[in-house]
């Protein structure tokens, strides 16, 4: 039982949705991300997603693209992110999920990254641009290392594909609220709710909604239909504008309407 599964189970028992926060590791520095991680834990984040910066973040909108560029400029690599996980784990039991594109993992070595991430204290990995149809090798490595594997489900996916996404996911399934890239938007897309319902008919694995959630009202709306809510760009933008700011306060504000 990973920390991610444990935490979702606890929240479900209380009748609450889990709050999942995304930040880009190394933005503005790995030292600052370590502090942010601890602040987020204290603010009641249930799962922390650490983004591994990549030169071509094709699923991300401008906010996370800029964060990725800042993190790369500060010298952040996958090896540095694994060391960050180790440092956070010495000081916190917050469930940790690495959020990466495939190529940095592939370059590092699939078996090696699974083993080292697990040893460092990570609980799962989400590989943004790895479809489950291509994931056999990765799933084997992740299962052997007891890492949860989270896959993205899109509102445009037909049932057969959702089945595949759901059956490959451990920890939770990430329901993408809309088509397109990550980023804030004014109104939470109405696409999200039917997708969550379809997924929940197929799997016992918790379903979290993400992409475009940036206000307490949107968090509450997502929490009403899903087991978890993911907020990324809104926090990353706050860190961009206030690199030393009270990011924990942002989380308390976002959670205030649940």
């Amino acid at each position: 039982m990973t920390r991610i599964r444990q935490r979702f189970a606890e929240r479900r028992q209380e009748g609450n949705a889990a709050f999942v926060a995304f930040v880009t590791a190394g933005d503005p520095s790995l030292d600052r991300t370590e502090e942010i991680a601890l602040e987020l834990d204290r603010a009641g984040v249930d799962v922390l997603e650490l983004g591994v910066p990549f030169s071509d973040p094709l699923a991300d909108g401008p906010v996370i693209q800029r964060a990725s560029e800042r993190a790369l400029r500060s010298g952040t690599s996958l090896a540095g992110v694994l060391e960050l996980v180790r440092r956070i784990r010495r000081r916190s039991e917050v469930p940790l999920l690495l959020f990466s594109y495939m190529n940095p993992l592939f370059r590092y070595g699939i078996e090696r990254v699974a083993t080292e991430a697990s040893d460092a204290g990570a609980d799962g990995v989400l590989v943004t641009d790895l479809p489950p149809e291509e994931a056999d090798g990765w799933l084997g490595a992740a299962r052997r290392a007891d890492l949860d594997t989270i896959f993205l489900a899109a509102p445009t996916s037909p049932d057969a594909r959702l089945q595949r996404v759901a059956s490959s996911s451990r920890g939770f399934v990430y329901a993408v609220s809309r088509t397109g890239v990550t980023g804030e938007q004014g109104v939470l897309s109405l696409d999200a709710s039917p997708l969550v319902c379809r997924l929940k008919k197929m799997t016992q694995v918790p379903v979290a909604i993400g992409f475009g959630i940036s206000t307490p009202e949107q968090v509450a709306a997502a929490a009403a239909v899903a087991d978890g809510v993911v907020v990324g760009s809104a926090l990353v933008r706050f860190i961009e504008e206030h690199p030393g700011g009270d990011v924990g306060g942002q989380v308390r504000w976002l959670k205030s309407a649940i």
Partner: protein
Amino acid sequence: MGDDGVKNIGVLHGTMTYLLQDEAGNVLPTHSVSAGLDYPAVGPEHAWLHDHGRVRYECVGDQEALAAFHLLAETEGIIPALESAHAVAWVVREAASLRDKRILLNLSGRGDKDLGILG
């Protein structure tokens, strides 16, 4: 993939192929005077043909391609796309050694679109 580049294999835009990348798997910047060739990876069909030894791939630089572009325009009245001008440049370079052979050049596109770049 082939032995000549395990280190150079990567995943970008949904494809595993030969990729220009650094040690951490970040994609390196590229340059070509031809927009269609200004890409850090190789199409997966070409990677496969290369690995199976069916096709030999050669390099042509900007200056050689531009010279070939002008040569074809001035001698034949045909304006090749800058992408295709790379193939013309290779034929010019290798013509002497292919004297008794038949050469089939695939002029895959027209260069009207590139005149803005050249002007």
